[in-house]
């Protein structure tokens, strides 16, 4: 296993997203993006990007009403005149079909005929259509581009590509951002270490909430693929002695979503002073990949 000391000097290649971002930074005297701190949401609202798409520039940010790149307006309001069918409507129709099938099956009691059910009213479809959405929102785009604290600090600290303002429009220094983020996010220094580590290797770590892990690694590029690696951060403070049951549980979830489990250990010197980001220079990272193998199935490639 390699022990990689931090900070890692960022290197760029002509084709990398980092190169594009560095180029835009060196040609201007100010950070190219600006955002507002949203403390209660533990995020930064990215407001001004000067025509640089943060998602294309390294998978930064996420649309608040989308699964990844902000596309809510183009998926809804912009399709009013096109008689588009939305996935949400398809979901409702599919459920209706399933319910009708259950009702028609005499062997299985349906919810509507169950004696314990107090409702005799029929299911009702209540879903907005595109025109109603447009009228309700007055045609405005309600979607925001949000950065989590790891992304935001990386853009501020490592790339000097973002300036963050507080709600009173006062710019925040690097140390102030570090202090605020550390106060709001448990083990921020540890998790940011891992985030910074994988970013410097060319990966784009995103939140791994849906998979029960800390980060999912994506490879920035023109074609967006599903993340291949799911990262769990470990240190003395976090899951230092993970038991086998938990490991099996994690691995099972990762296998079902076709991701490889990576255990990422952050080694900190003691005593630890995490008051300032300079502490990162003394942290070290070790990574271990867990992959289950069944001898009788001969899955090993």
């Amino acid at each position, binding site marked *: 296993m390699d022990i990689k000391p931090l900070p890692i000097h960022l290197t760029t290649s002509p084709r990398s997203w980092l190169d594009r971002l560095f180029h835009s930074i060196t040609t201007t005297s100010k950070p190219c993006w600006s955002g507002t701190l949203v403390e209660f949401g533990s995020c930064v609202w990215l407001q001004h990007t000067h025509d640089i798409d943060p998602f294309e520039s390294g998978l930064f940010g996420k649309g608040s*009403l989308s699964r990844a790149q902000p596309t809510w307006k183009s998926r809804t309001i912009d399709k009013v005149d096109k008689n588009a069918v939305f996935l949400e409507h398809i979901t409702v129709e599919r459920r209706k079909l399933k319910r009708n099938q259950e009702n028609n099956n005499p062997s299985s009691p349906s919810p509507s005929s*169950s004696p314990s059910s*107090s409702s005799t*009213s029929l299911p009702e*479809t209540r879903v907005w259509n595109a025109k109603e959405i447009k009228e309700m929102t007055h045609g405005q785009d309600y979607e925001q581009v949000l950065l989590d604290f790891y992304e935001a600090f990386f853009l501020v600290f490592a790339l000097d590509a973002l300036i963050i303002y507080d709600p009173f429009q006062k710019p925040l220094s690097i140390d102030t951002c570090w202090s605020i983020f550390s106060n709001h996010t448990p083990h921020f220094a540890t998790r940011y270490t891992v985030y910074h580590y994988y970013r410097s290797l060319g990966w784009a770590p995103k939140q791994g909430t849906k998979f029960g892990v800390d980060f999912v690694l994506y490879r920035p590029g023109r074609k967006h693929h599903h993340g291949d690696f799911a990262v769990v951060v470990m240190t003395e403070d976090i899951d230092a002695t993970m038991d086998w049951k938990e490991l099996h549980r994690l691995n099972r979830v990762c296998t079902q979503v076709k991701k490889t489990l990576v255990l990422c250990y952050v080694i900190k010197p003691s005593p630890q002073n995490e008051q300032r980001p300079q502490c990162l220079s003394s942290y070290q990272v070790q990574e271990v990949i867990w992959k289950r193998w069944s001898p009788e199935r001969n899955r090993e490639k």
Partner: protein
Amino acid sequence: MRQVYLDLVLVKMWKQVEPIPMNTLENTVLLAHEPDTPTDHRLVIFPIHQDDALSTARISQLFTTLRGANLTNDGEQLSKITFAIHSPDSTIVYYHVYKGFNNKKEQP
């Protein structure tokens, strides 16, 4: 709460989503009608941040408090609470939590 509300109304496109402030819980609960379910069925949705801790005692307390506020799933009883767990990047994961075992065939 705002993010969960917008997710249900603007993304999922549900028509009936009603915010109900709960001072005792220091939170706002959403009473929502899931499309294609009986008209008197409701989901009681409790927004919670992914960094907030949740214990079984806290879940029991929530059931007690929400029942005391006369919030029900079918007009008669509160058999499940739906947690909307939101993360900083606005991802929301929903989980149904039942008070004890429930007969699957009796669920709405």
